[in-house]
């Protein structure tokens, strides 16, 4: 298992490099010029110097190498310095945004908590709802509950978050007035009232994102439970007189959770992608909104860094899912 993990880790490096190269080459083709907004009265030689200052003068491969160094070497050092008060990264060049001339990572660190709160909470809520539904609809296969569950799952798959979002806004904010219309990112939790406000403004985005998670995971849970319910060991467990509760919730559930856990790990990056849309709907000021803003402002370093971070998440969680699968299920041996 250890060899497998190490091999997967090593294999992840070329994958990440390839992805960063693809993103870089895509952006290299960008016709957008960061100097487009500079007034025409600025002489061309000054413009050329400004381009150089942005690091645009060098050939592509040098800039790619510099970006790699900045992302994988300088930025972790900054993080390390920040945590332990050391000065490893002093005076080193960081990835600078063209939009606001500050380090990209500072903005990311500022905005990441918003996204993590909304996305993370919705994922947990979604899983908490999905697992019981999946278990029960598998146990009562083809019952009314199961049919209804299938239908709701189909709806969860089919209705995109940019429709459920406005729908819940119309229903709960405009008509009923229960929850605030726009997510207030500057809101700070200091006492009970502000905590309640924070909770109220988070309910709608969490609800929208959780619907998708629930739809997917309850399906997997159901399929996996159905696979296990007909196995011989279940009959054995019943035959030796275990209560139905123990048979289903201990024996079957534990074995059924194996594939579901990996699906949960695999779904996490996709949820981040979906958060781009949900953040737009509810005006949450997270990294998804940052990406959209950077794309509209032609801010290539930010776009590159953020896109790569999304890719990194996908590769990382794929790896976790693979390793988890091997650890949880002794029948799976990769090496």
């Amino acid at each position, binding site marked *: 298992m250890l060899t497998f993990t190490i091999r997967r880790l090593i294999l992840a490096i070329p994958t990440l490099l390839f992805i960063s190269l693809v993103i870089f080459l895509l952006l290299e083709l960008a016709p957008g010029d960061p100097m487009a907004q500079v007034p025409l009265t600025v002489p061309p030689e000054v413009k050329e110097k400004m381009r150089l200052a942005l690091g645009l003068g060098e050939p592509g491969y040098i800039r790619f190498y510099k970006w790699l160094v900045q992302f994988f070497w300088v930025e972790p050092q900054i993080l390390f310095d920040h945590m332990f008060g050391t000065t490893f990264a002093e005076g080193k060049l960081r990835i600078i945004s063209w939009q606001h001339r500050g380090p990209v990572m500072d903005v990311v660190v500022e905005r990441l908590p918003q996204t993590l709160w909304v996305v993370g909470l919705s994922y947990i809520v979604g899983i908490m709802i999905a697992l019981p539904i999946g278990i029960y609809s598998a146990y009562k296969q083809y019952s009314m509950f199961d049919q209804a569950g299938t239908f709701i799952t189909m709806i969860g798959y*089919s209705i995109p978050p940019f429709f459920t979002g406005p729908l819940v806004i119309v229903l709960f904010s405009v008509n009923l007035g229960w929850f605030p219309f726009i997510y207030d990112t500057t809101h700070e939790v200091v006492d009970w009232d502000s905590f309640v406000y924070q909770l109220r403004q988070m309910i709608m985005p969490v609800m929208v994102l959780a619907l998708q998670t629930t739809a997917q995971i309850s399906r997997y849970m159901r399929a996996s439970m159905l696979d296990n319910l007909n196995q011989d060991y279940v009959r054995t467990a019943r035959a030796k007189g275990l209560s139905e509760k123990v048979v289903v919730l201990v024996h079957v559930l534990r074995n059924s959770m194996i594939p579901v856990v990996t699906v949960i790990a695999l779904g996490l990056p996709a949820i981040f*992608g979906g958060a781009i849309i949900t953040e737009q709907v509810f005006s949450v000021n997270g990294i998804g909104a940052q990406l959209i803003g950077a794309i509209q402002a032609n801010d290539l370093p930010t776009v590159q860094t953020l896109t790569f971070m999304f890719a990194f998440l996908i590769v990382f969680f794929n790896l976790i899912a693979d390793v988890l699968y091997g650890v949880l299920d002794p029948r799976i041996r990769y090496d």
Partner: protein
Amino acid sequence: MTDTTNTEPTTPPHSQWYDVWHQFKAHKGAMLGGIVFLIIVFGVFLGPLLWPYDATYIDIRSRNQGPSLAHPFGTDQLGRDLLARMMAGGQTSIAVGLTAMLLALSLGSFVGIVAGFFKKLDGPLMRLTDLFLALPILPLLLVMMMLFREPLSSAVGPERGIFILIVVAIGITSWMPTARIVRGDVLALKEREFVLAARSIGTSNKNMITRHILPNVLSPIMVSATLGIANAIITESALSFLGLGFPPDFPTWGRLLNDAVQYLQDYPERVFWPGLGISLTVLSVNYLGDGLRDALDPRIRGR
């Protein structure tokens, strides 16, 4: 003289596709999904011939109207008839969905068949598929839209340019699942006797693929086709919704939804129709795929 030993079969023999249709008919959800999808497609493409208003006709005096007999869905902030815009938007959305699906499907089937059939290419092609699966699709699509929107618009016109861009972008980022499924099926097929028989009478690789392999992997391809349409429609709507799809005055369902969200506080009912269009289409196509999967699976068929 009567012939009592009637050796004729009671029912005439029927083809495989008859069996498939028979099974498909039994799946109520799939039938309903298919009918709803056909109604949407016909309504969207034939409706404008019957409906008097044009999707781009601006009548500023009758702007922001609620539903009435003249405008069943109401009018928007420029007085354009929303039913006409829904139909025009549906044309674009469904056209994008179908074309992008066809592109992704042909790419995916090609990669899958080649990877499954030629052992030497299997490794590299599957690594490529894995790499593509690791790409962050939505951010990359957004980046592609940002980068190639202007050059393509100026080359072939704004609407057609964006259409090509969206179709290609969705196509080359969604072929991977099809490729994986098709490869798995081809690998299994290659071990079957009929392939060995065909090989032994000297069938060339080209004929082998077109006559023996391709017809047998048609069912997974058809199932991914339905999923592909749903996926492409959702992706296109998402891009338009984020303001990076078609130009503002050009209606698609995602674009209409985006417009409606801006007037959410004053006219919340406008959100409903484009969202319903997207959801109903995707839902019906998903059910269609569900039924197709059951109908094309010979292990389930006949039960």
